[in-house]
């Protein structure tokens, strides 16, 4: 759980976490105005555990991931915040130091592996090169290791796969190769941005199944970015729900599903059709997310919120721990504590 009072300094950070992000703000200075894509985001990542960042399109998930990796280019800029990897503030590092970190300590898996694999080299060449570059393993040894890694991510006939080019593989096979590549470095943190979104459900199910095993084995801290609450339910240990550039609810996955408190989280859960529930009616949140330019100085969810009231205009609600291990950014939920809060009582 994020201790939100904690603002930094390596010594104040719990030894149980690998990555700590505090008040991260990443803005894009566009001609239309300042896009506040990530607006004061804080979270912790623990070894062998998966933090899911879930939210709808444009909520700032990918920009958060790119910020962690130092991949924000102009007109974008990390305007404030702290990112600690094993207690070291990454925002103080040079571009070169960050580049070395990427791929070694922090690995990234994208939705579309085609863009991250080099089309003119075989899979085998790409893996052995990475191994040589980051781990100093070369030649026959690297080849054996490459085959072993592909086997680990559930690819049949890895000795054939290493001879192929990316375009000769299916989407699911390519994504497995990317996961193998990312994990081959024994990274401290693995960031997976919509890793299964482009895949068919039966392929997604297999990859989620394998990822669950691999994460357990490799002890990396995982940040799983997704818009799909089903994927969250399959894989996450902790959940951060993002809306309009901010985390609006944060907590243990069981707590979030059993006892969602933020009106947006509740609305999201009521928006997904479920199998086997007969004659159920979906109650989606109405309207659309706000523009990230000129975010108002109040709760950004207010125009769409079922529970909105006058008090919701009193500034942007802070992310506050309501129940131990469960934080919510909603004026009404915060005002209702310390009684056992459920929004049913608020309504």
């Amino acid at each position, binding site marked *: 759980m994020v201790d939100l009072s904690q603002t930094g300094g390596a010594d104040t950070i719990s030894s149980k976490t690998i990555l700590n992000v505090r008040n991260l703000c990443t803005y894009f200075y566009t001609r239309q105005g300042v896009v506040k894509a990530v607006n004061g985001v804080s979270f912790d990542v623990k070894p062998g555990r998966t933090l899911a960042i879930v939210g709808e399109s444009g909520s700032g998930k990918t920009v958060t991931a790119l910020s962690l990796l130092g991949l924000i280019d102009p007109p974008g800029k990390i305007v404030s915040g702290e990112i600690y990897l094993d207690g070291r503030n990454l925002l103080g590092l040079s571009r070169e130091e960050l580049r070395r970190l990427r791929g070694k300590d922090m690995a990234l898996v994208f939705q579309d592996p085609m863009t991250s694999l080099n089309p003119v080299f075989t899979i085998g060449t790409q893996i052995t090169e990475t191994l040589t570059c980051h781990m100093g393993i070369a030649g026959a040894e690297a080849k054996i290791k490459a085959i072993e890694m592909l086997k680990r991510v559930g690819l049949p006939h890895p000795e054939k796969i290493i001879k192929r080019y990316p375009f000769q593989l299916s989407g699911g096979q390519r994504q497995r190769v990317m996961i193998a590549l990312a994990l081959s470095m024994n990274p401290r943190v693995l960031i997976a941005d919509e890793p299964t979104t482009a895949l*068919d459900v039966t392929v997604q199910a297999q990859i989620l199944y394998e990822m669950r095993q691999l994460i357990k084995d490799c002890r990396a801290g995982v940040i799983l970015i997704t818009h*799909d609450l089903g994927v969250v339910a399959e894989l996450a240990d902790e959940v951060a729900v993002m809306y309009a550039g901010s985390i609006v609810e944060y907590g243990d996955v069981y707590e979030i599903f059993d006892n969602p408190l933020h009106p947006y989280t509740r609305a999201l859960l009521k928006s997904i059709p479920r199998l086997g529930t007969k004659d159920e009616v979906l109650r989606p949140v109405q309207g659309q997310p706000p523009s990230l330019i000129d975010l108002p100085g109040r709760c950004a969810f207010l125009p769409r919120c079922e529970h909105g009231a006058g008090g919701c205009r009193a500034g942007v609600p802070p992310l506050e721990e309501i129940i131990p291990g469960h934080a919510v950014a909603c004026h009404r939920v915060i005002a209702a504590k310390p009684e056992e809060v459920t929004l049913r009582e608020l309504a």
Partner: protein
Amino acid sequence: MSLLEVDGLKKYYRTGGGLFSTGREKVHAVDGISFTLEREETLGLVGESGCGKSTLARLVARLEEPDGGRVIFEGKDITELSGKKLQELRCEIQVIFQDTYSSLNPRLTVSSIVGEPLANFNMGTRKEQKERVRELLETVGLNPEHAARYPHEFSGGQRQRIGIARALALRPKLVVCDEPVSSLDVSIQAQILNLLKKLKQEFGLSYLFISHDLAAVSYISDRVAVMYLGRIVEVLKSRDLATEACHPYTQALLAAVPVSDPRLREGKELIVKGEPPDPVNPPAGCRFHPRCPRAIEKCRSVEPVLNEVEEWHQVACHLSC
């Protein structure tokens, strides 16, 4: 009489001579499909990428010519229609597409896009057409004041509403929906699904609703047809899907849907491994047999036919349910 009857429909595409292709290979996109769609019914069509769903949609809407089989609409064979007759059919069968970027002309205002079918068919005076466009926009939950705007000024969900308004303009009987919510956010998906449900009741529509999302399909449909490699493997009532589905592929699809609650993930097992084979050379026998956990000897050589196991429930599998 069913509203729509599809009988042994086939469509093959020649592949474009890739690195390893001989240039003479055929993709069996739709390979002998039969089903019926009743009046005011929603039939969901679900399957993974490349199984032929969208091809089937285009064949039914007569946007493409089949290589075999027939499409019968209100008792009339529409497979061979052309010219004026085909134009008239367009009043009865309309399509909603996934990609509103390419399906809505960016240079036209919303008013012209929605009104275009009315103008093409000379439905009423200019003034009446304008009035009808306003009414249609309201029906799909858009502000009629925005009729003079262009598609890019709208969000994805709103653009899908524009597509729906246009599809409804000619008061069709059948609307073919090809992945209408797949590129939308979950909350917007639910808005559109609810809108489609409401419109169906209001106007007595029938839908052929195509999607790869089993949960969305079962939410909106009365019956679900499951496709695999150009074939239908099972058709059953949506309400029975979770409990009565008996084709091993349907069961695998159901098991692959992510859980809705983290407590359900413990001990979850994988039913199928691997990926669908290339539709250029579909496997002999039952097309699913290489991935099927329950395949028997017969499945390798004999292709099962779609059999009725009870009323409104058909299965193409050699095993009994």
